[in-house]
Each structure stands twice: as structure tokens, then as C-alpha cells.
């Protein structure tokens, strides 16, 4: 007990004895045997009171018969100051009147004179034990109160109410936060299971009961239920109800559980779900719109490639008939007009072909695979260089430029860009054509650059529009229909990228494009 006394904190004792020799002797003995005990000495009651007021020692060991102020009076004074003070009386008196007044004052311990140390220590031990115990209890109490405060605080912050239900006695215990979640002042209504059930929306009471029953089932896996709490002000809160069974030896079955107010979470969840659904609906809507326009395009293309081709072919047939049968006609205009009409037919056919290749891009099915753009560019460059060996053109082709995309379409796009570069450098003594890649804000940008004829930036917008040309026909042995770059544009678009160009007249042009990192395979056409 002595050690625990030390642990419980400092304990001090006031020793009051008028005989100096005895006082010193006893004090020394006490110090030796109770090294942790702080001992104050006083020679009479009055001096002792002074010390007591200053130090409020827990224990007072006092002689009774003393000059100035005796032990009984002093004890009464001390008890008035602190009723908790433990007083041990040392007395030669064994008469009952002394004892009675000592008891009345609250002196519960006494040791008889002449002083027997064994007896003194035994009494002192008992008192020390009591003090230590009391301190321990007080400390436990303090800790308990603190942890309860923490728990209540945590429950309040987390909107988490807890409860306990004793099945046999039928009693229930609710935490303050549970009351608050139910819209009640803590403790304002008696906590019973019936009252608990009544907190919930009538439609959800069955779920609550089921949770309780499930928890009582020994083989049950903990599950939670979301139930609605109906507050007195008629507002609804959504709580997550968790129930578990606790069985302690010697006592009956107890259910413990929590009610977590997740109203805001649930609202957010509902909102997210509705947003997602909305988004999905919109995606579906857009997809069907897209599908509709692609199939419209499909039928329009069909119209162009079939229905329109027939009358154009007829027209061509009649032009030929005119040329063949009226070749001998005296009027030279006849022949000239027929020839020109036939040229017009050729133009119409070219435009129809161009239109079909353009719309094909929107309709066709993409076959996405690893595609080595460098290798494609090299092949195209070799083909171009071989076609006109007399030309001096330096190709610079970056190595290892690989993308995911439709190889055939990307090849077509590169062909178009490199062919353009080849053609528009034809008037340069030394042509330079470069294919490469760089990163712009983390996105790879591919480019084809040449030092050829270039273009005026004010026409940059026109470049990618079909049938729009910015070079005069014949200027660069050019006889296309003006859809080459429009095709490249379409291919880049199908790959989720964008395309743009920079140029300067007589200094060259650069065409840049990006591609979606992993474009979607397939087509926009609804599968039949």
C-alpha cells in the first residue's frame, strides 16, 4: 500500500505533540518507515492549525492533551476546514466521554499511549490505504467522465447516436446524440424499445424490428439498414442502423447499436445517382442523335452514289452520243459544247467521288491497332522520292512515332500531307520535308513540315474545307478536287484529334495534328 500511496500522489501528515522528545522520536520513526510521506510537526493545537491552513495535509496525527489548544478542539477546527481530513488521535485516555466527543468530531482512528509503533503503523497503513483508494476512485471517476465527454463529443460531431437494449429487463439506454438525431432534447422522454420504434417512420419500423431479430440470431452476419427517423417537427432524417448482440457471462442478452444520421450523405448519393442517370440519358440521346444523323448521311450517300450516278451516267451517255453522231455537223459550236458538257459531267463525277470518300470517313468502321507512323511516313517518302529521282528533297522522319489508330486511315492522312509537302516543294531547288512529334502540355502533337510554297495565314481557315482551294489550278500540277486536307481533317476527327496549320508564303507550311490516345473502335452506325 505504501508504494501505491506514492503512485496516487503526494500524501502529507501533520504530527502534533507537545513533548519535544517524543515528537522528534516518533517523527524520525515515521520518516524512516514512510519515506514518501511528507510530515509536518507542531507542538500544540494552535501551531498545528496554522500549518494545517497552509498545507492542508490529508492526515493529522495528534496528541490530545496539549497546552494552548488541545487535540479535541484542534480536531474540531480542522474538521470544520476540511471534513475529509483523516485524524488519528494519540491518547492515554480511555474514558468514554473523550472517545465519544472524538467520534462526534469525526476522529475515527486512535492509538493509545504509551505509543506502540506496531499499532501506530497499522492504523496509519489503514488510513493511507483509504486515502489511496479514494484518490484512485476519484481518478477513475474523472477519467470515466472525461471519456464520456469525449464519446458524447465524438457522437455529436459524427451525428452518431448509440443505444443499448437489455432484452430480458426490456430496458433501453440512449446516448444524448441519439435523442438529438430524433429531434429530442437528451433525456426528454424515457428510453424504451417502444419509444425507440416510434422514432422511426411507420413504414420503416419493420426493418428496425428485423435488424434487432437478426442481431439476436447467433449465426447472423452484421448488416445495416437505412431507416427514416420521423422527428416531432415532421422532418425526416435517414439513419444507418447497426445492431450487434453482446452476451456477457452471468447476464442476459444485450443488443447494442448505433444510429448514424446519414441524411446529407444519402441526399448527395441520390443527387449523384440522378446526375449519373441524367448523364447516361443524355449520352444515350446524343448517341441516338448521332446514329440518326450518321444513318441519314448513310442514306444520303447511298442516294449520291446510286440514285445520282444513274442520271449522271445517262447525261454522259448523251454527251458521247452527241459527240459521236454530230461530229460531222457543220456548226463547230455543237462539238465544242458537247465536249464541254462532257467535262462538266466528269467534274460532277469527281465531286460525287470526293463526297463519297468524305462521308465514308464518318460512316466507316475504325479498326484500332498499334500503328507505327514513322514506318508509314518512311514508306510514303521512299515512294515519293522514287517517283521523281531527279528532285532534291531531304526527308527527316522521326523514329518510333507509334500511336493507336486505324492504320489504313492514318496512312491515307500521312500520304495526303506528305504528297502535299512533296508537291508544294517542287519549285524549290532543295526541298525539306519533316515528319515528327513533340509534346504540348503533355499531349503529343504530330506534324508534317515543308519549306515549300507555304500559304497566307489568312486562308488558314479554308484549308480543311472540302472543295476549297487556295492555289490556282495548274499552279502546282494540281488537278485534285480540293478534298485532300478535308479528308485528313475527317481522319483526325474520327481519331478524336484536331488539326491546324501554320504557313508563310514561299517559306513553307506545317500541318499539326493530335490523336486521341485510345480511340474507340467501331462505327457510329447502329448495329443492324
Amino acid at each position: 500500500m505504501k508504494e501505491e500511496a506514492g503512485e496516487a500522489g503526494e500524501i502529507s501528515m501533520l504530527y502534533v505533540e507537545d513533548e519535544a522528545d517524543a515528537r522528534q522520536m516518533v517523527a524520525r520513526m515515521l520518516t524512516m518507515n514512510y519515506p514518501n510521506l511528507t510530515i509536518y510537526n507542531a507542538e500544540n493545537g494552535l501551531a498545528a492549525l496554522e500549518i494545517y491552513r497552509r498545507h492542508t495535509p490529508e492526515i493529522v496525527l495528534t496528541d490530545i492533551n496539549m497546552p494552548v489548544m488541545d487535540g479535541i478542539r484542534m480536531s474540531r477546527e480542522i474538521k470544520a476546514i476540511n471534513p475529509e481530513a483523516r485524524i488519528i488521535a494519540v491518547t492515554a485516555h480511555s474514558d468514554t466521554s473523550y472517545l465519544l466527543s472524538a467520534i462526534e468530531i469525526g476522529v475515527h482512528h486512535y492509538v493509545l499511549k504509551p505509543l506502540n509503533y506496531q499499532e501506530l503503523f497499522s492504523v496509519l497503513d489503514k488510513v493511507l490505504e483509504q486515502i489511496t483508494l479514494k484518490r484512485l476512485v476519484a481518478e477513475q471517476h474523472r477519467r470515466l467522465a472525461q471519456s464520456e465527454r469525449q464519446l458524447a463529443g465524438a457522437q455529436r460531431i459524427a451525428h452518431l447516436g448509440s443505444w443499448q437494449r437489455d432484452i430480458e429487463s426490456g430496458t433501453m439506454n440512449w446516448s444524448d446524440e441519439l435523442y438529438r438525431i430524433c429531434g429530442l432534447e437528451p433525456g426528454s422522454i424515457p428510453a424504451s424499445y417502444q419509444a425507440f420504434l416510434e422514432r422511426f417512420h411507420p413504414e420503416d419500423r419493420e426493418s428496425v424490428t428485423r435488424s434487432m431479430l437478426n442481431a439476436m440470431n447467433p449465426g447472423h452476419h452484421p448488416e445495416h439498414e437505412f431507416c427514416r427517423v420521423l422527428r416531432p417537427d415532421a422532418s425526416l432524417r435517414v439513419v444507418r442502423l447497426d445492431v450487434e448482440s453482446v452476451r456477457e457471462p452471468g447476464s442476459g442478452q444485450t443488443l447494442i447499436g448505433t444510429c448514424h444520421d446519414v441524411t446529407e450523405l444519402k441526399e448527395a448519393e441520390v443527387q449523384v445517382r440522378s446526375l449519373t442517370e441524367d448523364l447516361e440519358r443524355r449520352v444515350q440521346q446524343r448517341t441516338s442523335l448521332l446514329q440518326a444523323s450518321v444513318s441519314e448521311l448513310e442514306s444520303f450517300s447511298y442516294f449520291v452514289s446510286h440514285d445520282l450516278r444513274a442520271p449522271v451516267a445517262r447525261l454522259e451517255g448523251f454527251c458521247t452520243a452527241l459527240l459521236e453522231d454530230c461530229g460531222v455537223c457543220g456548226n463547230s459550236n455543237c462539238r465544242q459544247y458537247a465536249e464541254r458538257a462532257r467535262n462538266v459531267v466528269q467534274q460532277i463525277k469527281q465531286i460525287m467521288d470526293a463526297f463519297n470518300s468524305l462521308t465514308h470517313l464518318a460512316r466507316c468502321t475504325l479498326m484500332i491497332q498499334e500503328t507505327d507512323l514513322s514506318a508509314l511516313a518512311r514508306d510514303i517518302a521512299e515512294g515519293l522520292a522514287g517517283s521523281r529521282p531527279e528532285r532534291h528533297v531531304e526527308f527527316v522522319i522521326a523514329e518510333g512515332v507509334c500511336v493507336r489508330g486505324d492504320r489504313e486511315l492514318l496512312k491515307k492522312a500521312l500520304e495526303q500531307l506528305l504528297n502535299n509537302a512533296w508537291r508544294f516543294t517542287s519549285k524549290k531547288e532543295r526541298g525539306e520535308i519533316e515528319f515528327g512529334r513533340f509534346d504540348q502540355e503533355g499531349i503529343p502533337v504530330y506534324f508534317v513540315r515543308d519549306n515549300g510554297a507555304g500559304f497566307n495565314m489568312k486562308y488558314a481557315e479554308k484549308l480543311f474545307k472540302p472543295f476549297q482551294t487556295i492555289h490556282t489550278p495548274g499552279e502546282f500540277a494540281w488537278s485534285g478536287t480540293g478534298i485532300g486536307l478535308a479528308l485528313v481533317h475527317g481522319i483526325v476527327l474520327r481519331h478524336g484529334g484536331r488539326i491546324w496549320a501554320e504557313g508563310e508564303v514561299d517559306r513553307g507550311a506545317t500541318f499539326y495534328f493530335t490523336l486521341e490516345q485510345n480511340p474507340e473502335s467501331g462505327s457510329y452506325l447502329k448495329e443492324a
Partner: protein
Amino acid sequence: MAHSYILLVEDNPDDAFLASRIIGKACRHEILMARDGEEAHDLLLLMERDHTFHQIKLVLLDLKLPKISGLELLEGIRSSEKLHGLRVAILTSSDNETDQKKCRELGVVDYIYKPMTVDRLKSVLSRSEAHE
């Protein structure tokens, strides 16, 4: 000498006129005209019965026809016991790859895009005759 024919199956009068004109310039065969697949079918049945069908040197067949389509007629000819050997050339303005593939599978002499020219028809006929 027995008559020899080119059977022209064509619904559009302008196309029929243009094709007839070319046939007239390219050869001496007479023209049998059918304005749809059904007419052509009936005519072929008749000639099958009369045993005159072998006088048809070439069938010039449009694909897009009312009632019975060109492709159906071609299939009918190929599955016929007697007529299956008839020489057929497709005359069309459509560039449908599927049609073209199917026709090749069904054994056509040529697949001619309109408008047909004298030279083209001559080459088809000379190829046909070389087979005889």
C-alpha cells in the same frame, strides 16, 4: 443464218436508248428488250421452250430493276438447267462493292459502268465469241 440476239434488260428508257444505240454501233446482233426482271424472265422461259435461247449472244443486265431485280434474275439463270450457260454482262451505274462481288461469283462476263461505250461492248462480245 439464224438470228442472233442481245437481250437488254433495262427499265430506264433513256438508258435503254443509249445502250441500244451502242449495241447498234458495235455489232449486228438484234436487240431483245425487257423493261424489268419479270419481262426478261418470261421471255427467257419462252425461248427456253422454243429452244431459241442459244441465239442470245449476251444478256446486258441492269441490276436495279422493278419486280425481279437483276441479281435475282442472274441467280435464276445460273440455277436453270438449260439457261445456266448464258453469257451475262452487268450494266450499272452503281459502284456497290457487294453487288459487284456477288455478280463475279455468279460468273458474269463483265461488269460495265454506265455509260457503255462501243469499244467496251466490242471487247465483251469478242471475249464471249472466243468462248464459243
